[in-house]
């Protein structure tokens, strides 16, 4: 029944489509021909009546528009028919489903009632058994509880005692540690202060020695005639703890031989810097055994 | 340049003064002339009209007259400007040269010993050139005059004092032919 209902609309639609295709085909061909005439031949185009051309163009357009409208109407009718067929089919299906559902529900209700009766029976049986077991278990529980209680009391007592002892010990230790740390901090503070003082002292000793060496060398430096402002020579000096010059040599040359010589000679002319012997040996070792002296004349004529 | 201008001005005024002196033998007319001709000078030109010596007024300068003319002209330190007191004699020399085209002179420029030798040679050269210009302006021909500078190499006086120096800053005019 459903198949038959589709045949006629199908043939109709086919016919409509074929008609539309034929109409469209001629239209496309015409349209293709037009630009060919338009482009190169100006003189030929002039001879065609422009209004006639426009009318024919308009007619063609109108025909195409009607054709399109007819096709659209045919397509809409087809759509409507197919929608109605589909609706009908769906309604039939709904009806069948509802009937099957009602049957299934009735069957399930009967089954549930049967199972509930069975369960009630089983429940009563289990309850009776459980009550008996509970009675038995309660007696055993009571006994066990009493024994456990006794053990727990004893353990707690022991634990309490041990904990008290531990707490006391910890407290003692904590106090000890605190005291130790306090002492440590005090000692550290003292040590730092001592070190800072020593550092300050040694810095001041080093500073003193610096100006001492400078003044000794200024007295002994014979600036040669070739010296010019801006020249600079660095002499490295190795001292013995007695203050005697172990060796002195050019570390960075001025580029002027006489100037370099004069700088090294200034050191050897002093030869001994007696105040070194008063310096703490460790400080000497650390800071004063090797020195660099920069000879850089200022205020020369040139 | 200023020196040259000054020299020219002085020469002009000296010439005018001389001419005035000759024609009028009067000192009173010269003031106006000197004033007009000499804006920067000392105005001393008027005195030369009368004190110009025996030959200055004569139209013709003879070889005999030359003996009475000065041949050494002095200069200030580091200057090449001929002093006014030499103008009369130089003018007479110039007149002689113009009247005797076969005569010729050599001008020897000198400087005192102060300053450097080459600079003094240049200074002596400029002094000789100053005198040469005066001669030419007054009628001598440039071809009759040659110059040479000895700088400080040939002092007239060997002393090393201001008096000696002033005598050494000079141009000597020497006749090569009369």
């Amino acid at each position, binding site marked *: 029944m459903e198949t038959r209902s589709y045949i006629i609309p199908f043939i109709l639609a086919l016919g409509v489509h074929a008609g539309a295709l034929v109409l469209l085909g001629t239209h496309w061909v015409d349209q293709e021909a037009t630009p060919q005439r338009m482009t190169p031949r100006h003189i030929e185009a002039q001879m065609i009546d422009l209004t006639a051309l426009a009318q024919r163009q308009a007619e063609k357009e109108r025909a195409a528009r009607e054709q399109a409208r007819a096709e659209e109407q045919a397509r809409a009718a087809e759509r409507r028919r197919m929608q109605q067929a589909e609706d009908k089919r769906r309604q039939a299906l709904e009806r069948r489903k509802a009937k099957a559902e009602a049957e299934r529900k009735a069957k399930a209700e009967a089954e549930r009632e049967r199972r509930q009766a069975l369960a009630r029976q089983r429940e009563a049986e289990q309850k009776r058994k459980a009550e008996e077991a509970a009675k038995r278990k309660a007696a055993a529980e009571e006994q066990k509880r009493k024994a456990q209680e006794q053990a727990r009391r004893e353990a707690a007592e022991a634990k309490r005692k041990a904990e008290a002892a531990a707490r006391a010990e910890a407290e003692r230790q904590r106090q000890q540690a605190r005291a130790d740390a306090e002492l440590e901090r005090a000692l550290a503070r003292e040590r730092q202060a001592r070190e800072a003082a020593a550092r300050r002292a040694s810095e001041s000793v080093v500073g003193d020695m610096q100006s001492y060496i400078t003044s000794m060398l200024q007295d002994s430096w014979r600036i040669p005639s070739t010296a010019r402002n801006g020249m600079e020579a660095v002499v490295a000096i190795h001292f013995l703890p007695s203050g005697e010059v172990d060796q002195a040599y050019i570390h960075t040359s001025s580029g002027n031989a*006489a100037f370099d010589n004069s700088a090294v*000679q200034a050191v050897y002319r002093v030869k001994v810097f007696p105040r070194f012997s008063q310096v703490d040996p460790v400080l000497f070792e650390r800071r004063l055994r090797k020195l660099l002296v*920069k000879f850089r004349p200022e205020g020369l004529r040139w | 340049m200023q020196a040259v201008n000054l020299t020219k001005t002085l020469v002009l005024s000296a010439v005018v003064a001389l001419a005035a002196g000759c024609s009028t033998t009067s000192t009173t007319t010269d003031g106006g002339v000197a004033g007009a001709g000499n804006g920067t000078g000392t105005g001393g030109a008027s005195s030369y009209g009368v004190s110009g010596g025996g030959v200055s007024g004569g139209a013709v300068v003879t070889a005999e007259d030359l003996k009475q003319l000065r041949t050494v002209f002095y200069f200030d330190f*580091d200057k090449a400007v001929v002093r006014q007191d030499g103008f009369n004699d130089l003018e007479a020399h110039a007149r002689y040269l113009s009247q005797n085209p076969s005569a010729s002179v050599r001008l020897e420029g000198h400087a005192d010993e102060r300053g*450097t030798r080459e600079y003094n040679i240049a200074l002596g050269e400029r002094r000789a050139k100053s005198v040469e210009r005066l001669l030419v302006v007054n009628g001598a021909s440039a071809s009759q005059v040659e110059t040479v500078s000895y700088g400080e190499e040939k002092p007239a006086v060997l002393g090393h004092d201001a008096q000696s120096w002033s005598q050494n800053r000079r141009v000597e005019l020497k006749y090569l032919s009369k």
Partner: protein
Amino acid sequence: MVIFKRVVAAMLMVLVVSVARAELVVEVTQGVEAPTSVAVVPFGNDTGQALPEDVAAIVQQDLGRSGFFQPMLRDNMLGFPTRSEDIFFRDWRLAKMDYVIIGRARAQDDGQIRIEFELHDVLREQAMLSEQVTTARDNLRDAAHLVADRLFERLTGLKGAFSTRIVYVTAEQLGPKRQRFRLQMADWDGARARTILESSEPILSPVWSMDGSKLAYVSFETGKPSIYVQYLASGRRERIQSFPGLNGAPAWSPDGNQLALVLSRDGNPEVYVLDLRSRQLQRITRHYGIDTEPSWSPDGRSLIFTSDRGGQPQIYQLDLASRDLKRLTFQGNYNARGRLTQDGRFLAMVHRSGGGGNGFDIAVQDLKTDRVDVLTQSAMAESPSIAPNGSVVIYATQEGTKGVLAAVSLDGRVQFRMPAVSGDVREPAWSPYLR
């Protein structure tokens, strides 16, 4: 990234370590400005014969006159060691000597004399130089100057100029109008003078070519000034083309191809440059004032000269390429005949301060700072000429009424007179290095 971090960390470590271990640095900016003390011990003589020259004495005089050294007087020496093992450094140290120079003369089989000499550092107690010079017996002065050159160079780093020569002009008054002029050449210390030109007319402005082979000078022998070039080896002379008027103040370019000179052929004294190969003359200055005394800068790119264009003589510098003119001197009312040191830094010149003193002195101007130092206290100093190593300026001055030569170290510390010769002496010119 990790590697980078490590590298950075390592670098930081190095930095920290190096900072921590940096040596203490002391700065010395003041000292005693004094000549270096040196003892030149009389040299031993192992030749078996008396020697015609006291080599050590010449060395001592050379070093002392340079202005760089303060030699110890022989009378103050405690001993005369001639070998290094005989030097008692402690004694020389107590005598405040920085260096001791010893030496000895030995006869060689070929009849030549070998001078062995040593330089010892008293303070370090070590030898700094030990060399020898071989020479003919009659040439010991040259050998002595050579020894001094070697020692000077070792001690100062500057090439010694003791083997150089000077030329100068003497003038003698023979009669009221008769003079004799001589161009003479001598060792730098004035010894061994000999005449290379004699004339009854003035000679002036002698100047050495840079290779030391010839001189240029001005001679009035024809009655007019002309510039001559004289070859020292042969004595041959050439007269440079002369022009009317002034021909003076010759100056060789450093490359020896050009001669700057002064001509007045265009009206007044101007500086010209003559190309000696093409004989082309180029006018350099153009001013109605006096332009004279040209001298080349050591690089040959500019000329300095004296000009009175500012109203009084001052020294100017003209760049030959750009023709830019720069006035160099501003202190004093007379600055002339400038000469530059070989390093181009210092200008020696004749200077008159203009203030209270009216004399002409030798002054040196530091062109870097324009500081001017007057080196002499003279009424009449002129013609400064600088040693090729820039240590000493020789100049002409007057002693009493006589012209003499004197020299002063560039710093003014040491002044000395050249040995007296007959007549007035003037126009000294110091040779370049001759070997």
